[in-house]
């Protein structure tokens, strides 16, 4: 049984082209890009090409705006700390209730350290309360950090609008775009975004590499100090092979963006439509209009997510659950709770996240296998008979 992998928002496979591009950097091209000799020079040039590829995918104005990091979490932390250092007197931070733990936990920690944190809520479709955001911006605000696309529901936030509001008040705006990069077109040179985080392993590059976009002129101080790598903005010898891989992955993503937005979206839409048609009492979470093309968060009432996942796993289908049993906590995810998804459904939420490597046949498998699984579990559920 070949597995049907539909958990691409968790991580993606490394594309063959990416792996091939990386391989020489483990063997013949092993120089340190900081070295002055030929060995280093060759590698430094390739790192620069990768930077160009990342910049191009983001639509950044200059390669100088790209800083390589180890992952999305590091990019987020670097951005937020840079803002806090730039404005040491400003003690107010703004984020949303549905951020990834990389931002959520960071802001909670900063809250305990004395910063005033405003967390903007979302509505039942996961849409940000823009009115509250507007009201919350004040002289004390150092940074607003709001994700571009939600990892669980795929809901897209109006980052351009948020950025504009921030800019009017001279507040820095950072967006965690880990899920959005490579899936939707971006043109940062024409957008009021000061900093943006991305992660390699969400777009078919390896794990352990990420990048932070820092618009020219944005006040910045390094998070990791030491050597002079990355123009003194992040010390530490570059993870060269992975950076090369990230560059190649960005180039691929740029080429495949059309496919992501047509073929992948069509598969996702078909999956949703068929599941809704064949399974009673289920619904899709997230903004029906503004949503990533690859993500489907679907709630099945009166049953529990882990049980669904494990039964699907029996049929080789790999997805993830929005309830918690799989994450070590016993509550439904904070995203679903923030959206007010009722308990009857929140526990039974499954996230399917597709990639360009998925096929129609795989979607057929899910459409065929999932309805009987849901029916079986409901037969066992004490609440189903009452429903």
């Amino acid at each position, binding site marked *: 049984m070949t597995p049907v992998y539909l958990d691409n928002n968790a991580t993606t496979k490394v594309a063959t082209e990416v792996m091939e591009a990386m391989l020489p950097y483990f063997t013949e091209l092993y120089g340190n890009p900081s070295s002055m000799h030929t060995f280093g020079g060759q590698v430094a040039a390739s790192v620069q090409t990768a930077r160009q590829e990342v910049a191009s995918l983001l639509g950044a104005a200059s390669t100088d705006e790209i800083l390589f990091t180890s992952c999305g979490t590091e990019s987020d932390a670097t951005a937020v700390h840079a803002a806090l250092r730039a404005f040491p007197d400003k003690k107010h931070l703004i984020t949303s209730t549905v951020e990834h733990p990389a931002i959520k936990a960071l802001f909670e920690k900063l809250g305990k350290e004395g910063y005033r944190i405003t967390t903007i809520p979302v509505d039942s479709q996961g849409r940000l309360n823009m009115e509250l955001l507007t009201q919350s911006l004040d002289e004390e605000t150092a940074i607003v950090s709001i994700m571009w696309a939600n990892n669980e529901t795929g809901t897209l936030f109006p980052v351009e609008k948020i950025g504009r509001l921030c800019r009017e008040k001279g507040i820095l705006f950072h967006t965690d775009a880990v899920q959005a990069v490579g899936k939707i077109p971006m043109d940062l040179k024409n957008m009021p975004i000061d900093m943006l985080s991305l992660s390699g392993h969400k777009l078919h590059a390896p794990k352990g590499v990420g990048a932070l976009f820092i618009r020219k002129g944005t006040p910045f101080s390094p998070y990791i100090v030491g050597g002079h790598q990355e123009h003194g903005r992040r010390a530490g010898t570059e993870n060269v092979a992975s950076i090369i891989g990230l560059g190649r992955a960005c180039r691929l993503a740029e080429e495949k963006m059309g496919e992501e937005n047509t073929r992948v979206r069509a598969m996702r839409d078909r999956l949703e439509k068929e599941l809704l048609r064949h399974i009673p009492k289920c619904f899709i979470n997230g903004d029906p209009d503004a949503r990533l093309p690859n993500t489907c968060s679907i709630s099945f009432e009166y049953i*529990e997510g882990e049980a669904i996942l494990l039964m699907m796993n029996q049929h080789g289908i790999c997805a993830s659950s929005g*309830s918690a049993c*799989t994450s070590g906590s016993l*509550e439904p995810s904070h995203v679903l709770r923030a959206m007010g998804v009722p308990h*009857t459904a929140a526990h039974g939420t499954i996230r399917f996240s597709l990639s360009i490597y998925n096929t129609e046949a795989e979607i057929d498998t899910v459409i065929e296998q999932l309805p009987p699984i849901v029916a079986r579990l409901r037969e*066992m559920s004490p609440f189903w*008979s009452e429903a």
Partner: protein
Amino acid sequence: MWDYTDKVREHFLNPKNVGEVENPDGIGEVGSIACGDALKLTFRLGKDKKIAEARFKTFGCASAIASSSVLTEMIIGKTLEEVEKISNDDIAMALGGLPKEKIHCSVMGQEALEKAIAYYKGEPEKILEGEIICHCFNVTDVDIRRAVQEKGLTSLEDVTGYLKAGGGCGNCHEEILQIIQKSQGMTILEPKKPAAGMTNLQKIRKIEETLESEIKPALIRDGGNIELVDVDGNRVLVRLQGACATCSRSRITLKDHVEARLRTLVAHDLVVEEA
């Protein structure tokens, strides 16, 4: 992914005795949809006063379903006196063990069984004893203390795995930890107080020392320097020199480096300012 035994897998994938007994003698319902798991256990006694039929309906994860399924197998054919002795450990054992985060699934089985027997005997519903500590899962201090003492739980994770208490919003963590510490006869750890006050002179000396040994060397390396001008209460007035004085990031140096170091090494409330 949880590490389940083959027995758990088997009972989850092919559960036995799913459903509800018609005209049951015993009914036990525990849990709720908000809690993320729930179990309805029903049984019927035969003429020999042994359980002739037992069925379950479970809302929950794989181990909750497996615990319920194995429980029905364990009680069929036994007298009530015999099944009364079944504990959650017996249920977990019959499954070849459960991950510690999932022990509460077996506890749910035991509770449903107790309730079903009480129903048969016509005993009134037990009312919650004690004060609710975990509001997410409705768990009282009495429950937590009992579990800690009887099962030898020593950590918050143990308590959450066993009772679910603490597995939600986390607001009750402090209180649960205190109950654990008290039950173990430990002294309660008070939150750390700021270091005892130094005299002004001691503070100034400490600031000077720290500047000399911890801060200056780094600045000198970068072609700069720093001079202490005055200390006024918690305000430390300094003057940056050399490259630091003209550096466009001097503010960052002051706050991030000088102030941060002084705060960790001398007193947490110091504020560093340019004289």
